[in-house]
């Protein structure tokens, strides 16, 4: 048995030993241990190295405020970064590594930094590296400094494999949600339960009861407090929701609480609770604050509460010769605990004394205590040195207000309590109780919880150890001579000297000082650092601590794995895919898919051995010389019906819709009211009071929402109804000179000749015994039809057309073909800053309509300027070049610095028909630049291009 472990007592099971690894060595702990307590029991004193100066650090607490014992856990090939050792339950086979220190926490080559502390003083990063970033040629930042600092700083490395653990999300609605199952929380939950309320209680520890396990001897109604806590918990579990290992990490508007519950049996996995409660009760207790003195970070300096917990809960004696140092007089409990466990209290620092140094290499050996002079400064001449292996410090206790502050609560300095406390214990539906509400004794905490509901709930008498926890005085950082080694933030290595330096450099606000010095910015969110930082800044700027205040808090309160937020929405469940009814056919043809909105659309269909370019060229050739077929089921389809349907659409589209005759359709474009292109598609008139509108595949939902907005809010007088039909119809486009002959036999009842079905006409027919529609539309410049059938007949239609001789083509060929004709695609040629005029589409703006959405905005002065970016075609001088989409257009072959960027490539492809690359681009004043030579820059490469009209192939007469 390890030497620090006591032979009896504690809440550990000595019959159940647990083997674990720390930094590659095997150790033994017991059931009931945390990783931190097991480390302490095994005399692991150095648990990490400090952030900047790489000083050895030990455990100062045994709770969630622990700043030093940050570990990476491994399970299989997976790592879990930045875990607080005191929050990790000991499990068999646990594999932990210290995250700080390189190559190991015991031997650290960056320790040299500590010899010159000024090298890493406040603002060190800003001051040292600003210049480097501005001189990219001498970019030592990326090549040297950043990798080095990352290695030095020693946060856990990011995991390299994906998190395969299962995380759940559970939503609950309750009357009362209690966070924290200390005495106050238990009393409040029981009180609410007795009032017939639906209750949920969450406790981050693996045991209910809070501090009762650290401070034994308290009895409640004749029962030990430990038993009272356990039996109360049992009642809550039976009649409500009661979860251990569950930390409330965020409190949001309207009583919305988020809780992360760890797995009880594994190091990974867990559950996020989304709790909506009519009343939120915060019973999160209080956190103890360390004292600030030179060498207060040496392993062997511990908080008094942690020492009590070590002895009483984990049966560990952290030191044999203890020095007590607090700024209040409530060290009785820890003194008793130490003496009972067999330790000697070798000194108690008196009110007119301070510690001026700690000595020892990686473990405390000696403490120097000095008298304070009349000027408040320690006089080291009047000092005594005492051999000791433990300094027990307590700078008082701060109510844990994090969740209360997240809910919008305010805090204020209380000289009586010696801490920042809540301005009111109730804020809307949020209530603070117990130590979080500055009710520090067992009796006060119970009473505070038991009066939650007005039901005369009583917990009986509280006798014995009433467990007062120390009410401290503000930790005025005692005027020190050695401020360089008096730490306020252990995790980020911030000293009193750093805070003073920041103050000298003009930082007065706590929020600015925090960011400049990085005090309180670690993974522990500065739980042990906040007050000391504020006190040091108050002293340095001669303000009082109330004026300084504490820095803000944000969720999550403690690190929560990303996997927990993702829950089950990972892998295929991350975002549902939409498949058309023809999807299986595309798969069978070996299609390569692309994402269009949530849809999977075939991009091209490679034959064996074919490259993408070859496949796309072949597919384009089919359409231009024979006939191709494309699945267009994904196009958005909206049924617009009602007596005012024509008027409604007339207001939304830029062109006339009311003049479309039944049996005809028209290409239309919609603008936002600022005049910018929003969506385009074909509008077909079904009959007098019914239209079918098609939208882009990705824009269907947005277009429907847009239409609903106008229908409901601006024009409620119009009698019109909107229905999404996107998934009711499957559609296939058939395009190419032989399109008509291929589908002729399929649709015997429709005369497909131009006289019967002219361009932009449509007819209804029956296919596969159900209604079908044939549209004469083309997005390629070739003779084209779109055939729509009932969704369930999509594959039958596909098979029939393919059988008849059409060759499948994908969206990539579709893009090439449309770009050759200069047809725009919303989202390629438009980006929310492009008007129809910029696209050269003035013809689509009705001159006979009084108003339409976007009409007036097109007349605003900035819309009329001549140097707007306008749509042009580009052909590279070297025909083999295919420009990058997004390439910047410039005027000079050798760009100056800064070279004005006059435009960018919006679409670019290889044209099989032209035997050349070609592109569409938006270029400033583009309409007037025809035949000009410009240059396209992309990733350092420059290509000469010629400006052309944005149409590359002559329109055919079909």
């Amino acid at each position: 048995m390890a030497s620090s472990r006591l032979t009896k007592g504690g809440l550990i099971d000595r019959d159940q030993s647990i083997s674990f690894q720390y930094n590659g060595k095997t150790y033994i702990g017991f059931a009931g241990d945390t990783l931190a307590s097991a480390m302490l029991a095994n005399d692991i004193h150095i648990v990490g190295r400090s952030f900047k100066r790489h000083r050895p650090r030990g455990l100062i607490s045994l709770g969630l405020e622990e700043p030093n014992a940050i570990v990476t856990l491994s399970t299989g090939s997976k790592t879990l970064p930045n875990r607080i050792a005191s929050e990790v339950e000991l499990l068999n086979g646990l594999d932990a590594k210290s995250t700080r220190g390189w190559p190991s926490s015991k031997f650290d080559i960056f320790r040299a930094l500590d010899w010159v502390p000024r090298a890493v003083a406040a603002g060190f990063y800003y001051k040292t590296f600003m210049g480097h970033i501005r001189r990219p040629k001498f970019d030592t930042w990326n090549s040297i400094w950043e990798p080095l600092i990352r290695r030095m700083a020693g946060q856990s490395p990011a995991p390299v494999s994906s998190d395969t653990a299962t995380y759940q999300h559970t939503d609950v609605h309750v009357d009362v949600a209690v966070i924290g199952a200390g005495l106050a929380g238990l009393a409040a939950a029981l009180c609410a339960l007795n009032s017939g309320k639906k209750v949920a209680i969450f406790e981050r520890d693996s045991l209910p009861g809070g501090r009762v396990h650290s401070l034994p001897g308290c009895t409640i109604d004749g029962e030990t407090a430990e038993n009272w806590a356990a039996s109360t918990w049992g009642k809550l579990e039976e009649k409500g929701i009661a979860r251990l290992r569950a930390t409330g990490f965020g409190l949001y508007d309207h009583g919305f609480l988020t809780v992360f519950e760890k797995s009880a049996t594994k190091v990974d996995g867990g559950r996020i609770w989304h709790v909506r409660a009519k009343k939120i009760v915060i019973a999160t207790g209080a956190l103890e604050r360390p004292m600030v003195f030179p060498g207060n970070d040496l392993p062997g300096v511990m908080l008094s509460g942690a020492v009590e917990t070590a002895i009483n809960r984990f049966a560990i004696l952290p030191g044999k010769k203890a020095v007590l140092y607090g700024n209040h007089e409530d060290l009785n409990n820890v003194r008793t605990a130490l003496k009972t466990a067999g330790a000697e209290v070798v000194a108690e620092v008196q009110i007119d004394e301070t510690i001026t140094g700690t000595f020892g290499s990686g473990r405390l050996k000696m403490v120097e205590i000095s008298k304070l002079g009349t000027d408040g400064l320690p006089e080291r001449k009047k000092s005594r040195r005492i051999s000791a292996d433990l300094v027990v410090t307590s700078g008082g206790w701060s109510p844990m207000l994090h969740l209360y502050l997240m809910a919008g609560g305010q805090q204020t300095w209380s000289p009586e309590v010696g801490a920042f406390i809540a301005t009111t214990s109730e804020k809307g539906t949020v209530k603070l109780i117990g130590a979080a509400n500055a009710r520090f004794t067992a009796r006060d905490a119970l009473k505070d919880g038991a009066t939650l509901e007005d039901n005369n709930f009583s917990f009986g008498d509280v006798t014995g150890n009433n467990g007062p926890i120390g009410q401290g005085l503000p930790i005025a950082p005692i005027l020190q001579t050695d401020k360089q080694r008096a730490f306020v933030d252990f995790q980020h290595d911030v000293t009193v000297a750093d805070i003073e330096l920041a103050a000298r450099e003009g930082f007065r606000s706590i929020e600015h000082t925090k960011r400049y010095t990085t005090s309180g910015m670690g993974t522990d969110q500065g739980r042990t650092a906040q007050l000391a930082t504020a006190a040091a800044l108050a002293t340095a700027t001669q303000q009082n601590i109330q004026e300084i205040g504490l820095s803000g808090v944000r969720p999550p309160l403690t690190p929560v794995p990303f996997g927990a937020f993702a829950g089950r929405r990972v892998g295929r469940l991350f975002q549902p895919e939409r498949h058309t009814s023809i999807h299986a056919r595309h798969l069978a043809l070996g299609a390569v898919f692309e994402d269009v909105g949530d849809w999977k659309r075939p991009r091209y269909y490679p034959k064996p051995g074919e490259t993408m370019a070859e496949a796309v060229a072949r597919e384009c050739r089919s359409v231009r010389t024979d006939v191709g077929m494309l699945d267009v089921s994904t196009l958005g389809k909206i049924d617009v019906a009602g007596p005012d349907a024509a008027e409604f659409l007339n207001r939304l589209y830029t062109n006339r819709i009311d003049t479309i005759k039944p049996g005809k359709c028209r290409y239309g474009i919609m603008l936002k009211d600022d005049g910018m292109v929003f969506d385009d598609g074909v509008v077909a008139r079904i009959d007098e009071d019914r239209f079918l509108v098609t939208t882009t595949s990705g824009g269907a939902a947005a277009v429907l929402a847009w239409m609903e907005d106008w229908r409901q809010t601006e024009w409620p007088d119009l009698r019109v109804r909107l229905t999404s039909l996107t998934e009711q119809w499957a559609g296939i486009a058939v395009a190419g000179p032989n399109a008509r002959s291929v589908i002729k036999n399929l649709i015997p009842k429709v005369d497909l000749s131009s006289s019967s079905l002219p361009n932009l006409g449509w007819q209804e027919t029956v296919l596969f015994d159900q209604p079908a529609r044939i549209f004469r539309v083309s997005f390629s410049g070739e003779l084209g039809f779109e055939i729509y059938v009932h969704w369930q007949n999509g594959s039958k239609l596909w098979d029939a057309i393919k059988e008849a001789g059409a060759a499948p083509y994908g969206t990539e060929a579709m893009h090439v073909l449309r770009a050759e004709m200069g047809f725009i695609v919303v989202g390629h040629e438009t980006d929310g800053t492009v008007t129809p005029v910029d696209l050269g589409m003035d013809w689509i703006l009705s001159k006979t309509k009084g108003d339409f959405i976007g009409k007036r905005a097109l007349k605003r002065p900035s819309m009329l300027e001549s140097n707007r970016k306008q749509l042009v075609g580009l052909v590279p001088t070297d025909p083999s070049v295919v420009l990058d989409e997004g390439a910047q257009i410039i005027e000079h072959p050798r760009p100056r610095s800064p070279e004005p960027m006059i435009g960018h490539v919006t679409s670019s492809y290889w044209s099989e028909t032209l035997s050349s690359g070609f592109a569409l681009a938006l270029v400033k004043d583009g309409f007037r630049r025809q035949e000009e030579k410009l240059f396209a820059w992309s990733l350092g490469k420059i290509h000469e291009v010629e400006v052309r009209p944005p149409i590359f192939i002559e329109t055919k007469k079909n």
Partner: protein
Amino acid sequence: MLIIPCPHCGPRPETEFVYGGEAHIQRPDVAADDYTWANRLFLRDNVKGWTRERWRHDPGCGRWFNLCRNTATNEVGQSYIMGAPKPPFPNQKI
């Protein structure tokens, strides 16, 4: 996360709603001047405190309505259907 009272469906979580910006902005006549149109298109009051805004109960009843909300505290007040007169803000301090 807010709880928003849909005038048609009752209180529902915020995730069921789509935000639609400041309410009661009139669309000017097409003949109105540039200044009036610029105001309508681009300028919003961006109030700190009680304000009226548009929301749509998207996967619920699908309807647009107006809601009183305090942008500083996230308290919500009355919701009311499109076209209804503006209700007063709750008598609460900002």
